[in-house]
């Protein structure tokens, strides 16, 4: 290869990496701005808080003085996401087991059923659930439309597919010989499931559960329609704040949340590997 050609290849590669860096930069710019704004002492103009970037100083003040309402919203979100995660696992793992190991007509249709919630735009889901809850309330007096339970149900609807997908992928990768080996050694079906199958799919289920957690934690669209009276979720709080009054401790809380999400992703990657994370925990198939 001529020197010129090698230089050409090198130049093209460098250009490529510049491009990738621009893309990463574009993706991370808003997040970095928020982190930057979180250490700014902040200033008020005519009693309205202004958030600014680059920071005009450095202080960790806002990290220790979070508006109580904001903290409460984070707790509500964590509580909600936890409930949704538990529910999604309780629903999703049996579903995956039944789909992967059962033999019944219409199995493909049921598998598709579990993928459907992710194909409906969240705004449609939000509207549909709100109207359904209103109808239920009118007919039976059970008020789900502005309740924690109602929002939980709606989130379960869209989060379960992730667990089904993750557990399903893991089950598909298990060799049937493992079960047979356990049986030949005297284990009952239940013992085989507990001692062999379950431990081997647990990492993947954990991954799917984390996806479910994050889906619930970060959702705005559905939560907006079904906001519980006694507790606004964190994303909805930030949403409302952007539209009305900016709260100065918001960037600080956001940074902390971002850090926590980042750690979760790293954990996810260690548990189930990059491949499965990319495929959305297996949910998008």
């Amino acid at each position: 290869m001529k020197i010129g050609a090698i230089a050409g290849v090198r130049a093209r590669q460098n250009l490529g990496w510049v491009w990738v860096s621009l893309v990463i930069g574009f993706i991370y710019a808003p997040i970095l701005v928020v982190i930057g704004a979180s250490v700014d002492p902040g200033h008020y103009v005519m009693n309205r808080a202004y958030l600014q970037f680059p920071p005009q100083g450095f202080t960790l003040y806002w990290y220790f003085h979070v508006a109580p309402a904001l903290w409460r919203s984070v707790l509500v979100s964590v509580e909600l996401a936890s409930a949704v995660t538990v529910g999604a696992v309780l629903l999703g793992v049996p579903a995956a087991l039944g789909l992967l190991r059962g033999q019944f007509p219409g199995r493909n249709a049921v598998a598709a059923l579990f993928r459907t919630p992710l194909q409906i735009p969240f705004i449609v889901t939000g509207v549909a659930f709100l109207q359904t809850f209103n109808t239920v309330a009118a007919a039976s007096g059970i008020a789900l439309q502005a309740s924690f339970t109602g929002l939980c149900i709606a989130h379960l609807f869209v989060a379960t597919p992730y667990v089904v997908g993750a557990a399903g992928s893991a089950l598909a990768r298990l060799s049937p010989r493992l079960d047979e080996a356990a049986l030949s050694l005297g284990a009952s079906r239940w013992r085989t499931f507990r001692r062999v199958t379950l431990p081997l799919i647990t990492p993947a289920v954990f991954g799917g559960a984390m996806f479910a957690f994050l889906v619930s934690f970060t959702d705005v669209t559905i939560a907006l329609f079904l906001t519980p009276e006694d507790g606004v979720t964190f994303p909805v709080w930030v949403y409302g704040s952007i539209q009305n009054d900016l709260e100065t401790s918001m960037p600080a809380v956001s940074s902390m949340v971002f850090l926590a999400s980042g750690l979760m992703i790293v954990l996810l990657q260690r548990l189930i590997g990059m491949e499965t994370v990319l495929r959305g925990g297996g949910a998008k198939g």
Partner: protein
Amino acid sequence: MARVALAGISKQYRGHRALLPTDLDIADGEFLTLLGPSGCGKTTMLRIIAGFVEPSAGRVMFNGEDVTATPPNRRAIGMVFQDYALFPHLTIAENIAFGLRERAWSAASIRTRVAELLDLIQLQGIAKRLPAELSGGQQQRVAFARAIAHPPRVLLMDEPLGALDLKLRETMQFELRRLQRALGITTIYVTHDQTEAMNLSDRIAVMQGGRIHQIGAPRDIYDHPTSRFVAGFVGQINLLPGQPPHDAPGAVRAIRPQHLSIANGTGVPAGHHALPARVLTQFFTGNLLHIQLAAQDSVLTVETRPAEHHVTDGDDVIVHWDPGHCLILQA
């Protein structure tokens, strides 16, 4: 330890007959091999004995007790798979102890037994490792130890050496035979490798198309094959050109390659049949020489020692044999 008997066992899948009605009796402590090409039904038969496949008809009996309706985990069997099926999340010791824990052995007796077995398979010191850290041969031995940890009535092996390379396979064959003889467990072994079958077995059941063609000791199968299929599958066979014998129409005369000779200067011995032939090609395998000849529209293979014959491709020779070595084979 158990006698195993199959009475009228058959298996029919939608549109495909995997096993024709078969009877089989296996003595206590015997090493029986089911030998045959892919799709002959040998694995199906093994899995029926294990209890993973329900027969369409017939009964499976261990020591006279009908176990056809018994689930695999209650048949007191041991099974070794081709891909070993070791539990990837458990250590070697935990793998071997798996069945013992299921049968509520005490922790102390489990420890003793595992140590005993590791000695037996000559892999002391790997108890705490995970299966992924072991080589194929080591995994296979662990799989064997796991299968016999709680002594089974019947040991079933489905092409356990298939994934190993040649040298390792040969070593493992000797190991398996030695262990089985020492333990005396009734063993049913499935393979498509006839050399393996002959090395290991007390008896071989040669299968094809869902049925047993012939069953007998390796020597018997080799010296007195009853069908062309068996003769060709166990060892090599030459079909001799010419008319079928008058007392067995539809049969052919055949002879093993090592019973053919090429006449040198001294001529053809008295009583031998002979044919003119041309040398096509030769295969040298170290201790043996295989010479392929064209004779009367047939291709014959002569097996001999390299020192005894010196021919060149294209030579015209005389091939001869003692008719006493001829086999009469049905199709």
